[in-house]
């Protein structure tokens, strides 16, 4: 199917927390930045972002979206935290995503359910070890650039215009030009040059950009860490302003 705009990313692009206490998914869909941009520019769009997504999965699912026959005029890809990782258990061929802090492997490919206890235990064991002993930010940056290279190559090969943003810029110091960062020399973008939602697009100190924290009221998923309706409006304005393509077309 053809869409004018294609969006992929993590919870920020998914619109997490916009559903509020009423779990109003339609409200979320209508207020996330993908819908605001498309509405303002009168464009069709698809948004396949998922909360907890890793860059591994964002890149893979983007390519799968195109390879399954979809097309678009512009792909807007939001990279997530470089610490996240896609893992496959020894007991199942479906992938799970590791996101530090969540303390659980995320399994959308089985509709959020744990397929079996052996599968879950294997993934949980790997998750614990990965963040305790294996992961470091240099490895995260390596993985980010490898994924960036894959996506740049794919989009360029298939003549698909793209615009990249990222969730946060809090690891930008890692990307120092003096440092030897593997995969970076082969990429067209740099980690530092991709606008960060938290910091560049939104003022992280301005609470109006973010949802209200209801986690203490018994809503653990509504912890005030995601953009509010106003935050999404500002992300939408930023993308329209900085990427003229949808306006000029």
């Amino acid at each position, binding site marked *: 199917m053809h869409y004018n705009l294609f969006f992929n990313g993590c919870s920020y692009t998914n619109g997490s927390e916009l559903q509020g206490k009423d779990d109003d998914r339609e409200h979320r869909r209508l207020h996330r930045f993908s819908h605001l941009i498309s509405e303002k520019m009168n464009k069709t769009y698809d948004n396949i972002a998922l909360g907890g997504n890793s860059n591994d999965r964002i890149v893979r699912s983007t390519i799968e979206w195109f390879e399954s026959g979809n097309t678009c005029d512009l792909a807007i890809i939001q990279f997530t935290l470089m610490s996240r990782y896609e893992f496959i258990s020894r007991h199942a061929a479906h992938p799970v995503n590791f996101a530090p802090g969540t303390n659980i492997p995320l399994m959308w490919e089985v509709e959020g359910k744990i397929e079996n206890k052996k599968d879950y235990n294997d993934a949980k064991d790997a998750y614990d*070890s990965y963040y305790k002993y294996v992961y470091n930010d240099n490895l995260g940056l390596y993985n980010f650039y*490898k994924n960036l290279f894959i996506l740049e190559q794919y989009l360029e090969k298939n003549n698909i215009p793209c615009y990249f943003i990222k969730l946060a810029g809090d690891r930008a110091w890692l990307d120092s030009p003096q440092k030897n960062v593997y995969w970076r*020399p082969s990429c067209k973008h740099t980690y530092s040059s991709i606008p960060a939602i938290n910091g560049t697009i939104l003022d992280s100190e301005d609470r109006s950009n973010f949802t209200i924290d209801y986690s203490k009221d018994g809503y653990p998923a509504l912890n005030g860490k995601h953009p509010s309706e106003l935050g999404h409006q500002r992300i939408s304005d930023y993308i329209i302003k900085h990427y003229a393509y949808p306006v000029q077309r």
Partner: protein
Amino acid sequence: MHYNLLFNGCSFTEGCELEGKTKDFNHRIKSRYSHVIHERTSKTYDNIALSGVSNNHITRTTIEWFEKGNTCDLAIIQFTMPQRIEFISGLTGELSLFAQFNFIPHKPNDFYTIEKPIDFDVLKKSYHEYYRHVYNLNVGINNFYKDLFILEQYFDKKQIPYYFIKLCDINHIKKYNDVIWAALCKNRYLDIPTINGDILTMSYQGEDYTPDYSKDDPKYKWLNGIHPSELGHQKIAEHIINHAL
């Protein structure tokens, strides 16, 4: 610079053990299959293979070779064991090579001169934890296919002809799950010719392989008879000439 042929891979393509007890590295260069092909076809070549490296490394360095401005008429890429990965030190940012059963800290320019890095103990802990708790066959195969996808896309985009071979099948397993990245690739793991099995005998014994000197003296620990002999390299060269040139 332009070459007719580019070779990349692990120790099998680097020609490990051909140097023998006398460490005759010139003999290694002259006897490995990349040079044998050059002698038989007069084609110019570059060989950037390194011992102990992973498919992550082979993929990355192949692309870096082209991105530096080099060109070739045919890229011959030898994939290695999918268990191996590139690991980056959190302390120094230096590269390490994780190969299951074989921990190689930092750059493997030469097995004979590896120095112990300052974060050796941290790296070793990461290495052990990775293979004990994170790595499994699905992770390895998925990692292989992600690298394969990168190379296939890159070669297609740049219109670079290529020929793939691989070191061996994982534990000689002939059945595995075709995990996520596989669906996006043109080639299949099991269809790529295997040096150890399809081209040479699978046993690591006999005239296709170097003699095992490691039992004679600890100083010959890298001469353990698991790499192709001069005859083995000739057979690999013949296979490539017959199938790719």
